[in-house]
């Protein structure tokens, strides 16, 4: 069983959803990002999603853009992501990387996969890479034993859900709403429907992201998904209160995923 598989199996045994928290590597500085990610795990995240700051993050709203810009201005270099992942792995945590594709392409897809695997990372979430264009990544991920976490969206046709599910491993990232990352008051009925439709094509765990910001929403999503993914809210917490805020939010969300609200409640 791989690291991610064991995480999902344990959560399932405990009758709850897994909690996945996102923060960009190098935000606000390289050293501080390590502390923030450690606080996230300490507070109760099962997996951390380590973001690669990028100049043109078209899937991200203002909060993640701001954090990416800060990291880049503070001198983030792509190779730092391996350093961050290694720190998490060494402390016994589970990490996946979330990155736009051009930095990986520029580094070399195989080389990136090799170095990520060596750092103990479990896989890559690819917001702007679809399986149709992912030939190199399919090969490299097999070669280096990494999970391919592709995204599905409420707009995805059944044909695309199947195609994407078939190419995925580890888990599938379902975007709760049509739009970019950022905190929302409601995560929408669309997420529940998307998870239901995606399940028809896969037995992989399905994580829901985009918009979740508090324990109550986490409980709601945990009622129908295998993982709850939270990003912008962690950045907000880090901006306001640093590592302490991140730890507290992780705790609140961890309690949320442990009290899943059944459908319709």
């Amino acid at each position, binding site marked *: 069983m791989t690291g991610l598989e064991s995480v999902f199996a344990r959560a399932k045994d405990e009758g709850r959803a897994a909690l996945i928290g996102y923060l960009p590597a190098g935000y606000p500085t390289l050293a501080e990002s390590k502390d923030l990610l450690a606080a996230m795990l300490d507070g109760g995240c099962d997996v951390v999603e380590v973001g690669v700051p*990028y*100049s*043109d*993050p*078209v*899937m991200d*709203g*203002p909060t993640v*853009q701001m954090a990416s810009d800060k990291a*880049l201005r503070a001198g983030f*270099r*792509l190779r730092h992501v391996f350093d961050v992942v290694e720190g998490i792995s060494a402390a016994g945590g589970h990490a996946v990387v979330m990155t*736009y*594709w*051009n*930095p*990986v*392409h*520029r*580094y070399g897809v195989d080389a990136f996969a090799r170095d990520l695997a060596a750092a103990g990372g479990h896989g890559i979430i690819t*917001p*702007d*890479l*679809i399986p*149709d*264009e992912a030939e190199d990544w399919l090969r490299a991920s097999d070669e280096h034993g990494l999970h391919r976490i*592709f*995204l*599905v*969206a*409420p*707009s*995805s*046709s059944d044909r*695309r859900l199947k195609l*994407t599910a078939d190419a995925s491993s580890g888990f599938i990232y379902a*975007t709760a709403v*049509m*739009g*970019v990352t950022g905190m929302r008051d409601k995560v929408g009925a669309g997420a529940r429907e998307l998870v239901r439709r995606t399940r028809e094509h896969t037995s992989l765990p399905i994580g829901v992201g985009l918009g979740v910001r508090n324990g109550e929403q986490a409980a709601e999503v945990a009622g129908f998904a295998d993982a709850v993914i939270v990003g912008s809210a962690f950045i907000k917490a880090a901006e306001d209160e640093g590592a302490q805020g991140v730890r507290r939010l992780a705790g609140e969300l961890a309690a949320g995923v442990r009290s899943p609200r059944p459908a319709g409640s």
Partner: protein
Amino acid sequence: MSAPRDPAAAGEPDKDLHAPGKHDPDERGHFGPYGGRFMPEALVDALDELTEAYDKARVDPDFVGEFRRLLRDYAGRPSLLTEAPQFAEHCGGAQVWLKREDLNHTGSHKINNVLGQALLTKRMGKTRVIAETGAGQHGVATATACALLGLECVIYMGEVDTQRQALNVARMRLLGAEVVPVTTGSRTLKDAINEALRDWVTNVDTTHYLLGTAAGPHPFPTMVRNFHKVIGAEAREQILEKAGRLPDVVIACVGGGSNAIGIFHGFIDDPGVRLVGVEPGGHGLDSGKHGATLSQGVPGMLHGAFSYLLQDEDGQTIEAHSISAGLDYPGVGPEHSWLKDTGRAEYITATDDEAMHAFQLLSRTEGIIPALESAHALAGAIKLGKELGEDGLILVNLSGRGDKDMDTAAKYFGYTS
């Protein structure tokens, strides 16, 4: 006596301008290794829907007929071909002919693509159009087509560009469009596209993204090119008629590359015709402040396609620089990357200063004020004319008019006080 020739037909060796052909990419939009779709999954079905709608429309006589009618009766096509003999004296004596896209309605070639995509938007039953703009030419053209066809219109424009092209902002607002200044990143064209993509992923049900250049994910590079092929088709017929032969060189400026790809395709199957794209050299290639994507870039993914790209060794986009807002872009359409690699087209650069010199020169020698973008092509003509000498024949795509650039020009030449 034969019937008088329909003037629009003069611009219509274009029976097959829209039909699928040998210069189309593969079915997933690849020109060689370039192009494709590097896009969020959330937009893929919209891109499939667009591809399907376009594939039907391009072979539908009703659609093609309506597009032609609008080009003729609304945009003013065919555009003129004008010889520029006084300007040519500064080009080593080679003949210089200008394809006058500046005389189209709204003042640039952009109207061709915009009318095509706006018609397609109606066909798809969408009611809202979004677009990015750099210099404002594409924004104005989009706002115009939306006014004509009754579509809601939102234009994203980098804040830097809203300042250097304030008149075009006013124009778009007059036409009923909402103009959104973009304050992220470099606050220019690249970031306007990012913001338009964010809007699109949120509102894709009702909204068509009317991309303004032959870049982005499939099917945009092919579709936008085909809507601009009329430029090259007209120009080829006109130059044969007026100059009696094909040109030695066809020159166009390249930012994203839509006007260039449109005119190049009129001559792409004429092996004796050199196709030359002129990229913005900004302050000079050594300065690092330029937009010479094909000349200096490395292939990568930006805005949905794999193509040459100005990027650093970590794959972060490097901000472009050009005095011309319309060329201030670190990417380029994927077909240009393929034409570069295959050697069918060549790409050179003109600096800000060289473009400004050509801008003033054409104004003073011919009484034609070109867009700053087009001035780069003219600067290329000066270089290549010297190489070709008196026997040379150069066709320049004068992609737009320069009224919008008077503020920049007045500052550059010190005309203001």
